[in-house]
């Protein structure tokens, strides 16, 4: 029983962080209608930004670098959205769907190679939030990972409040439901696009900064989280915030339990991701829109 509970704890801790990462992607998709293929690279950028900030300002507590990393990524995202994505919504691009894929892929390669050029190929890590492990009843949990999980929960809660209770949040939801109707009531859809993109990549960067001391940094560190995020947002329902949270936690739990209980231990870790995909396929089979996906009008 202790073993089962320890695996569940590991899965839940990871699931919450996965949810935070996926949330940014779903936010961007629901508002802009664009799949951000550079999402993993913003995660990586957040980690490196945190590393850079803490290397430069050595007296700073590592926790303070998290919002700063999010802010840096949000500014970069804002500039990118204004320069490269806004033309899509101004109907200045002939083939917007293909353009969006290519431009975000391009950004992905650019950011990855930029990190390689600036920070080099060797792994790095910002200082730990808190060193060592914490004893949670029957198991040791990394203090860094626990901190990342708790902060992710707080960020998720703050985001839900912003989206549901503030004017900007309501405006974002309105744009995601119907751009024209939102415009009629005085909401500027283009401004909301920019806000959503900056916020989305900022969340990815904060997830990256939160996990950098646990999962470390290298230029290609964003690849796996970004693929997992795509799975989570489809699982939860494209564009659904609640769905992303539920999807993230579910994937975290499935990965952990599968690695812990798969009959052949030699394959257990290798198939960890595949089990997430099996759940993904099963959910889509019985509920093609995902957990909270909206019906097409």
């Amino acid at each position: 029983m202790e073993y089962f509970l320890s695996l569940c704890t590991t899965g839940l801790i990871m699931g919450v962080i996965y949810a935070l990462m996926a949330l940014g992607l779903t936010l961007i998709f629901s508002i802009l209608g664009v799949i951000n293929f550079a999402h993993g690279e913003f995660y990586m950028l957040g980690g490196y930004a945190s590393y850079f900030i803490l290397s430069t300002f050595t007296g700073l507590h590592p926790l303070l670098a998290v919002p700063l990393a999010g802010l840096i990524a949000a500014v970069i995202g804002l500039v990118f959205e204004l320069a490269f994505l806004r033309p899509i919504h101004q109907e200045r691009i002939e083939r917007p769907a293909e353009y969006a894929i290519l431009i975000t892929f391009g950004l992905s390669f650019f950011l990855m190679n930029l990190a390689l050029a600036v920070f080099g190929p060797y792994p790095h890590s910002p200082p730990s939030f808190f060193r060592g492990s914490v004893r949670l009843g029957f198991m040791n949990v990394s203090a860094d990972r626990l901190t990342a999980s708790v902060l992710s929960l707080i960020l998720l809660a703050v985001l839900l409040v912003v989206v549901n209770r503030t004017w900007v949040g309501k405006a974002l939801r309105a744009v995601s439901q119907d751009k024209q109707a939102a415009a009629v009531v005085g909401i500027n859809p283009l401004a909301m696009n920019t806000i959503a993109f900056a916020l989305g990549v900022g969340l990815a960067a904060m997830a990256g900064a939160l996990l950098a001391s646990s999962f470390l940094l290298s230029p290609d560190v964003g690849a796996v989280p970004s693929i997992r995020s795509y799975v989570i947002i489809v699982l939860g329902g494209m564009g659904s915030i609640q769905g992303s949270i539920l999807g993230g936690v579910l994937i975290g739990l499935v990965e952990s339990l599968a690695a812990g209980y798969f009959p052949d231990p030699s394959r257990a870790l290798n198939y960890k991701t595949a089990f997430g995909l099996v759940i993904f396929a099963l959910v889509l089979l019985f509920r093609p829109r995902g957990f909270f996906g909206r019906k097409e009008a």
Partner: protein
Amino acid sequence: MKDKRIFSLLMTILILSSLIAACGPTPTPQVIKETVVVEVEKEVEVTKVVEKEKEVVVTATPEPEAEAETILIGGFGPLSAPGAYQGGIEMRNATEMALDEINEAGGVLGKEVELIFGDTEGLPERGTAVTERLITQNKVVALTGEYHSGVALTEMEVAHKYGVPVVFAEPWADDVTAKGYPEIFRVAPSIEFYSSIASNYIAANGWEKIVFVTEDTDYGRLQGEGWVKQLGALGITDVELIYADPATEDFTPILQRIAQDPPDMLGGVITGIGNSRMVRQACELGLAPTAETAYYATTDSQYPEFWETVGDCGQYTFFTYVGLPKSLWNEKTEAFMANYEERYGQVPGGVAMEAYDATYLLLTAIEQAGSTEPEAIIEALENIELTGVLGELWFEYGSHNPVPSDKPAWMWHQWLTPNVFILQYTEVDQSVDEAAVVFPVERATGPLYTSP
């Protein structure tokens, strides 16, 4: 009217291009009937390649190097993901450094040597394409480098097809040299030799229950299978292999599973960032290194970034080091280490040493051969004796001295005394130079194993 002008312009460009191409020194291949392609030069060497559908492609290999101002050398290795680009970049740096030194000293055969380095991304298909391009398009006279065994095994087929000599720097698969290709030489250890050092070390410590979490690549699988076989021969049969994608972020669930029945030794055979992740996560979980469970990490632990990424968890870990520990450095090693660090701002690892020596071997062979002809280079390599940063280098077995039937086939064109050691970090923040050499015992600088 405008369209007509554009059409005229395009036609003019097309005609001029055709004229330039026709007058140029290297005619473009002409397709004759079905799939017969012929390149014509004054001196023509013809190679026939019969494809599956009985198409015959005839190409001509010109001999531009005979009158070229420079000698072109090809390099290959992973410079980007998914390959182990840390190793690839280090390899390229060391090769460039060797070339610059040789050029400053007057070059080879009185000519400057140039390097064209291809990024294989750690992918076998890219390795094939890169080698094909280096040989047929760039016209390199010889090749060096490569990190991944799986990629090297495809590259060597291309090199063998064209008869171009290769000195491999880092791939370990036995088959790289076991195939007995005349063009293929290697300074890295074979996997059998490499694995035997760790196997003997495990046996010497009396550890009986062993678990390896090994990356699911040719690198990890070859090592894992080698250990199971060699440890079995040493009477250690409780050996478990767990495969993992090298990009795995979180090993915790499988480590929790292993912790249900902790082994005497846990090995994390994951390259790059995965090495540090494993060390850290096993340590944070309280699994290893502990008094009960020793921890074996990969060669990537030699880099200074290891301590930045694992912190205190790195203490008491041990790893196999392919290279020369400081206690065994010669004058060349000292100069190389100092120059590399000054030039690239990084302490070089064993990969850099191997790549540097592989480059020197190749270029010294060309100088000694007095020619860039493949046969002459191969003959010179077979008879070479060179003091490199790794020590005395030579190839015991080859066409000049065939591998005896009682010796393993991988000894063909293989440097037989590659430096493979087990090092242990006994203190936090130790550099690789300060780490204790714990095995082989006769060259050890510290006790066999220091337990937490």
